[in-house]
């Protein structure tokens, strides 16, 4: 087992880097982070569209969200795999494909989280802002969203955990993320599948469990002192 780690440890962590593109655990984490950071603005836009008073905006967006959420992520990945090259006119890398699929998929999920967050802000806040003369956009930008996003932080961390797990699906299109690397190692070593896949499982466990504890701690802190969070963060 120790020999396994010594021989393949680095490969597991960073893939073929620097002789090749980044892979392994590093790719998993970076891809997950990038996907979440890009999905959040998309989620906010979709949530605002869902809350809009204009039916022409609300209905199509609601339909898109329902369709994306009813489709397996793997399906979305395949759509991206086959049609991004057609859209962009050039061959699309696996990372880009995976990123696009993850951003779209998580954006649709985050839309619901953001929507709930916005609707959870007391109406008095919006009334006070509008009474001062602050317009719709300004109220949203300076009063509603800052508070909603702060309240949503634990949910966002949990969504990050989900996204990290979702990166493993890149395996199926040959993306060199950590599960794919583990399989490569296994096909070389052949006689220790339990050790190899066990290590893979433990890695994900450590990463995801750790992050979910962070989310839990954040949630408890927010519940205890909701209005003093700015003080804690400043």
């Amino acid at each position, binding site marked *: 087992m120790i020999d396994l780690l010594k021989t393949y440890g680095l490969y597991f962590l960073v893939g073929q880097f620097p002789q090749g593109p980044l892979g392994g655990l590093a790719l998993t984490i970076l891809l997950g982070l990038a996907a979440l950071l890009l999905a959040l603005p998309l989620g906010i836009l979709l949530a605002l569209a869902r809350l809009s008073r204009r039916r022409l905006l609300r209905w199509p967006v609601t339909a898109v969200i329902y369709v994306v959420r009813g489709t397996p992520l793997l399906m979305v990945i395949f759509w991206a795999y086959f049609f991004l090259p057609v859209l962009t006119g050039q061959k699309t890398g696996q990372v880009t494909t995976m990123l696009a699929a993850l951003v779209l998929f998580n954006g649709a999920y985050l839309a619901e989280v953001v929507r709930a967050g916005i609707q959870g802000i007391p109406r008095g806040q919006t*009334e006070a802002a509008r009474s001062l*003369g602050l317009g719709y956009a300004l109220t949203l930008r300076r009063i509603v969203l800052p508070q909603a996003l702060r309240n949503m932080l634990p949910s966002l961390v949990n969504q990050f955990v989900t996204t990290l797990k979702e990166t493993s699906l890149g395996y199926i299109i040959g993306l060199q993320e950590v599960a794919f690397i583990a399989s490569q190692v296994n096909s070389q070593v052949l006689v220790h599948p339990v050790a190899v896949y066990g290590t893979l499982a433990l890695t994900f466990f450590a990463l995801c469990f750790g992050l979910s504890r962070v989310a839990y701690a954040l949630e408890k802190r927010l519940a205890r002192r909701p209005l003093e969070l700015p003080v804690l963060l400043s």
Partner: protein
Amino acid sequence: MIEFHDVNKFYGKYHALVGITETIERGEVVVICGPSGSGKSTLIRTINRLEEIDSGRILVEGRDIHAPEIDLDRFRSGIGFVFQQFNLFPHLTVLDNCTLAPIHLRGLSPAEARERALAVLDRVGVADKASVFPATLSGGQQQRVAIARALVMEPPLMLFDEPTSSLDPEMVGEVLLVIRNLAHQGMTLVCVTHEMGFAREVADRVLFMDRGAILERGSPQEFFDHPQQARTRKFLADIRSPFGRE
């Protein structure tokens, strides 16, 4: 300054405002009182269109506030509104609460806005709390900050929707004092309140509402000492005696 012309509002089948016709002059201090559910909050909220009406007209400084060409945000920035629940922005400091609107709506530089805000916060007596967050303040302090936040925009008209109803009794006085000072400075104020002592001392006119209609109106003396309607008399008697009629 404010004119109501036969204003009606319905919540479904419930007739919340019944044929309201009234004029409030510039510089007047008007107190609106009445039992729960009489429509007094609804009425004051129609003035800055937090509530919409179903029929009738409301004019502020001669202009129909429901005309399509009205810029609603601009209109609202000229009216100060103070809520029963304060509604301060918890993620901003006291100072930022007060400078947000002047910077974005009046084009003031942050420094100018800061100066103006501090002066107003001083007027209401909470200048020393400028850099703290609202959660650390008492109810009375928070409401005074809310008043300052509205005042910084230098509105010609201030509306108060039960400003002291959420406060512990010992803090009511400090807020009423601030409002009284505003009255003495000649501002046009409309105040929904249960504080009868305040009404007596500060109001130019008192409006009594019951079940959506203005039942009685008059100077404080007329209202408190010689109420005309039986309903008004009952209301005054109820609030004077803590146990109601035996």
